[in-house]
């Protein structure tokens, strides 16, 4: 499992980079939000990986188990996921309104329109 640990962190780093890249390099607003989602989940992955204890199980107390993974990061990330979906839905609502006003969801296109 140790390889998984290091591996997980690498994955988180790569996902962070991909997510951030999508946010910044995409011109399409929906895709920006997709990137934002990936960026956020990558950070969540870090938390969850931190919370893992070797040989532990899910932190639901049961007879016969005495090693549990850390519940705190799970709690935090539960909250963070909710925050993420809230952000996404507001973002999508904005995108929809933007489409209605501009007729487009491409950033360059809108900038062009506003400059006219």
């Amino acid at each position: 499992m140790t390889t998984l640990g290091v591996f997980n962190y690498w994955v988180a780093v790569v996902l962070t980079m991909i997510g951030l890249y999508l946010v910044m390099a995409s011109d399409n607003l929906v895709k920006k939000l997709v990137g934002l989602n990936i960026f956020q989940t990558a950070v969540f992955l870090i938390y969850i990986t931190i919370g893992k204890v070797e040989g532990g199980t899910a932190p639901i107390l049961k007879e016969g188990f005495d090693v549990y993974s850390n519940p705190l990061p799970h709690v935090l990330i539960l909250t963070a996921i909710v925050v993420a979906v809230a952000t996404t839905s507001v973002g999508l609502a904005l995108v929809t309104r933007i489409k209605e006003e501009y007729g487009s969801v491409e950033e360059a296109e809108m900038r062009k329109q506003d400059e006219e």
Partner: protein
Amino acid sequence: MISSHLPALQVVLPLISAPVCVLIRKGLVAWMFAVAVSWITFVIALALLVHVVANGPLSYAMGGWAAPYGIVYRIDLLTAFVLIIVAGMGALVTTSAFRVAPGDMSRDHQNFFFGIFLLVLTGLLGITVTGDAFNLYVFLEISSLASYALVALGRDRRALMAAFQYLIMGTIGATFILAGIGLLYAVTGTLNMEDLAQRLQQVDDSRAVKAAFAFIVVGASLKLALFPLHAWLPNAYTHAPALVSAFLAATATKVGVYVLVRFIYTVFGGVFSFETMSLGPILMVFGLCAALVSSLVAIFQENVKRMFAYSSVAQIGYMVLGLSFASHTGLTAAIVHIFNHAAMKGALFLALACAVYRLGSVELSELRGLGRRMPITFACIVIAGLSLIGVPLTGGFVSKWYLVSAALEQDLWLVAAAVLVSSLFAVVYVWRVVEVAYFQSPPDGKGARCEAPASLVIPTVALAVACIYFGIDTEPTVGVARAAANELLASIP
């Protein structure tokens, strides 16, 4: 019984009121309710300040779980000081929202507006008052999410784009902070700020801590719109409804600065921040750039809201510059400026709200003859503008005085000169507005006197008066700021 629960009520009151407000169907009732709530919130903030000044820092364990196991509210002088600013601005702005400017925002769903507004207030108060790093993130998101919506309510369709941009940048910033907090948790096992501070001392040469520091500082800088991460701010403030700009300009970025201060001094400690990470020069460079470049950019704006938005970026540069000196004077300057800038920007944007109410737009050309048409509004703009420039006997002078003193203390007199140069830029842009409003004759047929309704004008005047009052009687602001700076610096072992 109530008095011992004030720290919780400070945040919980607006938090509970937001859903209630949404349930109220009549806009007028919703307004009255929001006004009552925000003023009670302000009174609570005052009571907290009085308490903290008299008895020292205050803690409150949420759910009765003591730190570090539960979430703890902790109020020291700086907290109480920022609470006053946020709650005070909240009270003034809700009051002035009696009739939301026609055309500025849709009139139906006023209850939603007030609900969302109270949520921003809740979030900002929660960020300020909490002593728990993750709880800070949660309330940061409450305030941010609600602010995105408020910005998007602006009349112009560009408000939507501005809000979206704000959402993207704000979320990236918050996620950076989240990542930083995660790293801190990994090496310390705690989320409580004081506990973090203690435990970090044993691991502060760890690379994870250094990276966490970088993430949190960058994240906070995004939130407080530190140059060059400020791109979202001018758009958001320009296109948001004027009242919203007033509230956000006066509070949101200030709370961002507060978060930065909290982390730099309380969590990481001044020694780590300024010696190990040599944060000082970095902040100084960016703060100076912000002050100079944004002031310069502000000069060339034709939309007055955008002009003052850029000026906000510049003023935030001052605060960050104050922090960068890592000295008592510098910190005092930053804290005092948090207050004074809130007063002057609040007054300016509220005055613009008055103008929008009557004129529908705040393009510079629309403000022609404002001096005659809306003399009170215009007087407020002049007073707040003078404070922005830093003319003596205004609040802005006091903060600038401390800022330049802090620079001179360390023989950085080029920095001092740069600060003064940027105030010269402020002279130029403020005077552009004054000139147009004062000398050019009003557009045809619009010469009559037409002040905005009293509910809008009175808060504006109150803030303008505050700009002057706290420039003359500096004891309330400077006294608290100095004591708060003492407290923060004392936490350095």
